[in-house]
């Protein structure tokens, strides 16, 4: 239910962004030119690959191949950390060039939406670490396995939200 609620909140925020973008199309178009699409694209590829590793981890745990699950979660953690590092570099570059949240409405929404998403990613990384700890156990209880599957779903939700944010913030034209 938490995941569905999160998706609904982000849907509302997508709508708010499109609405205000429509009010100031020229400003948003000019501001968007300052955002590097390559940062967004690389981050999308990192999250998609991280998700593939998380799927592998779930399947490995189901097959009692816990060592494989540990490697897969480790790889997903690296993808997530890479996303975060890339995001920090992107934010630093924007701020260094004077593009701050208070600058205009585009950057206010850009930092708010990417910041909120990054917070979810951080929570996702924490969940992945908990999943890694679980996969070190020789066997999982029913509840632990449910947590493992729920954690994987949360990670995929972070991925799902990002693919829409990538389209809205980096690719859509005014």
């Amino acid at each position, binding site marked *: 239910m938490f995941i*569905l609620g999160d*998706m*609904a909140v982000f*849907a509302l925020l*997508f*709508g708010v962004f*499109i*609405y205000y*973008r*429509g*009010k100031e*199309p*020229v400003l948003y178009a000019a501001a968007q030119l300052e955002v590097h*699409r390559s940062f967004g*694209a690389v981050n*999308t*590829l990192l999250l*998609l*690959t991280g*998700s*593939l590793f*998380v*799927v*592998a981890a779930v*399947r*490995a745990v189901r*097959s009692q*191949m816990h*060592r*494989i699950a540990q*490697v*897969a979660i480790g790889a997903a953690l690296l993808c997530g950390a890479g996303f975060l590092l890339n995001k920090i570099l992107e934010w630093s570059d924007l701020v260094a060039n004077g593009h701050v949240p208070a600058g205009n409405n585009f950057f206010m929404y850009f930092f708010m939406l990417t910041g909120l998403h990054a917070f979810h990613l951080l929570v996702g990384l924490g969940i992945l670490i908990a999943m890694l700890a679980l996969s070190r156990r020789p066997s999982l209880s029913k509840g632990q396995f449910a947590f493992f599957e729920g954690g*994987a*779903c949360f990670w*995929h*939700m972070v*991925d*799902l939200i990002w*693919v*829409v944010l*990538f*389209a*809205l913030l*980096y*690719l*859509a*034209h*005014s």
Partner: protein
Amino acid sequence: MTGQFGAILRNRISLIWLVLVVATLVSWWIGADDAANPHLGTAVVLIVAFFKARLIGLYFMELRDAPLPLRLFLEGYCLIVCTTLLVMYFTIGIARTT
């Protein structure tokens, strides 16, 4: 261990990942093509984004095999949110630029 790892990924899920990667690269290319029809490009980019979201939901979150209400939530989410954003984009934004 590499063989076991490969066995887990050597199936439809890797194909879905590949489709998602190709869709990302295609959207990136469309989004970067400023000289082309920007409004049509935006519509394609948004539709591709929700197509990707649906694939993530169906195959990565495994909602394809989930109870019907969950599957319907995903299908409805992708359809309704995508349509709403497109309608808002074409009625609010473009009306002001033309």
